[in-house]
């Protein structure tokens, strides 16, 4: 099985009539995703890519029974688009838009509290259930259906690691880009919960990097609730150039949970197998599964 999306997923694209929206909605349709509607305020009524376009998310849901959104709306209106999806009670919103102001995301997170929506992103490459459903902008050529769940903070590394997995005969149940922004929707912990509950997923790969607290939260969750399936993690950025320092003690407290070594140590403590390098993730997972089978 898959997580977040499946063969019953009916996708509406917010911002489909723009340049990026058109291109990626087309790719998604080509991939076989059931794209049922586009939403662009003021452009309702005129079909685009042979898909009906509506003025609002609510209208699109009423007419097409859409149950997921892919958001391509530019930064200026991205937060409003996300909040519109949340208020329309869409179960899933995947946000590709990059460079959303951080205070706008605080507003979106306020709207998410107690809502029925799972938000993925922003600045996410999307969610891919290989051969079933693509919501987003990721490369799809090397992905294959199978039993590895992938949750990632980096689009480029996801493509790379998916290729490694497929190369070793390990297809993917679902790949999820949680996005590269500080304030975002679902995190590693949520993905782990979903992958652990999914019978098709046999192992999980986490693709992390320096900064933020996603890796720490995942480690804490795994330490408390236990590893229900093998988990391999990569933390990129051990040798990153020191970022220009933001401020003083504030940066210190933020940096306390941020460097690659500390993140790897915490994940390892929680039972996660750390891939020694980005080129070894596929091999590490393959060895781990073989060892468990033996």
């Amino acid at each position: 099985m898959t997580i977040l999306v499946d063969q019953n997923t009916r996708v509406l694209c917010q911002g489909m009539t723009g340049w990026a929206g058109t291109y990626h909605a087309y790719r998604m349709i080509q991939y076989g995703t059931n794209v049922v509607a586009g939403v662009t305020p003021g452009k309702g009524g005129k079909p685009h890519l042979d898909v009906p376009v509506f003025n609002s998310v609510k209208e699109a849901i009423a007419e097409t029974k859409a149950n997921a959104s892919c958001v391509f709306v530019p930064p200026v209106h991205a937060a409003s688009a996300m909040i519109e999806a949340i208020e329309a009670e869409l179960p899933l919103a995947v946000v590709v838009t990059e460079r959303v102001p951080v205070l706008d995301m605080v507003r979106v997170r306020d709207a998410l509290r107690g809502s029925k929506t799972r938000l993925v992103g922003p600045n996410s490459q999307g969610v891919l259930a290989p051969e079933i459903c693509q919501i987003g902008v990721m490369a799809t050529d090397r992905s294959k259906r199978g039993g590895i769940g992938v949750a990632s903070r980096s689009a480029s590394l996801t493509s790379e690691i998916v290729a490694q997995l497929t190369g070793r005969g390990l297809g993917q149940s679902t790949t999820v880009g949680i996005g590269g922004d500080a304030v975002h929707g679902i995190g590693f912990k949520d993905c782990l919960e979903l992958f652990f509950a999914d019978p098709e997923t046999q192992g999980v790969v986490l693709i992390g990097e320096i900064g933020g607290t996603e890796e720490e939260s995942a480690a804490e969750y795994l330490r408390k609730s236990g590893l229900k399936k093998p988990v391999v993690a990569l933390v990129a950025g051990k040798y990153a150039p020191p970022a220009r320092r933001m401020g003083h003690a504030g940066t210190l407290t933020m940096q306390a949970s941020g460097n690659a070594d500390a993140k790897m140590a915490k994940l390892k403590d929680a039972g996660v197998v750390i891939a020694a390098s980005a080129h070894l993730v596929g091999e590490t997972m393959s060895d781990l599964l073989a060892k468990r089978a033996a």
Partner: protein
Amino acid sequence: MDLHEFKAKRLLAGYGIMSPDGRVAVTADEAAGAAKELGGAVYVKAQIHAGDRAMSGGVKKAESPVEARKIAHQLLGSKLVTPQTGPAGHAVKRVLIESAVRAQKEIYLAMMIDALDAAIVVLGGKGGSGIEDRAAGGAKLESLHLGLKGEQKAGDIADFCKRLGVTGAEAEKLTATVNNMHRAFIELDASLIEINPLVFNEKGEPVALDAKIVLDDNALFRHPDLAGLREEDEIDEVELKAQQHQINFMRMDGDIGVVVNGAGLGLATLDMLRAAGGEPANFMDIRTTAKSLDIAQGIGLVLDNPKVKVILVNVYGGGMQPCDTIIEGLGIAFRRKGRVLPLVLRVTGNNEDIARVRIESFGLPKTLSPDMWQAATRAVAIAQGKAR
């Protein structure tokens, strides 16, 4: 976007947060004039985008205009090195001349985003200066979580003040300062406002002796007025040029030029080069929005670096940016710069076949590798003179 102290203080003044009377000077004469105008003892403060200035000689007290002139003369045009600037230091182009304030009590006060809780967090500490060392030594900072409308989400402002040793009328004024900071934070789209130290003067009024504001670059479209506050002359010009061409670029000290699309892949490439014993010359993340001419500009910056002995290209072509777009940019950059350098390429993904054909036409010494670790080790061997 980082704002200089004097600009941060001007903005905060608009929100009712007081600073000592001050003037900006770009020459020693102006500094002396400002000191005379202000009267009494003043501080001469170098305006650079880095902290720890006081301990590094960037903030000095002057008892007279003559002394202010002397200090400004030393500072202006010099390179100030602080623990936060790196060994090269930052050029001092402006000094702020400020009336000395007799501080009765000082605290550290900062406001930023708590990403995990998606809330605004206020941090406070007893005693302002030297807070970095005390925090590193495990000293605890007090915190308070606020929502977008200023509502308290965790912690209590009265308790926050008390824990900072601020009580009575001063606690009321500190509460007002926190509220004003919050308003500034929201209206300016800040990602950090830091007042260090905030002191209470003889009248019990809070005064910001030093202030720092970082604005959210992603929100500058809402603030055309604030975008104009950027000092283009003080940003690394190479990195700025890369930014203008949709490329995140950071200079490093090594001899292996790095061309990568994607931040995560970029970080992983640096990790592999270091693990293989090499030293990267730069970090590069070509954004998916970059076109081949942008990419040519970015790669040109790598070729401009005389230390670079070899170029490692690690590209995964995705849906938005196929391999051939990047290779086209690479070809244009080499043609423009006329430099001959060995290339190690690992190019895979969308349109890799077209990219391969194009690489053949460059006439440069090259190694094509299907695996990024092989490519990294090869680049290191070339940089170390063990391979060609």
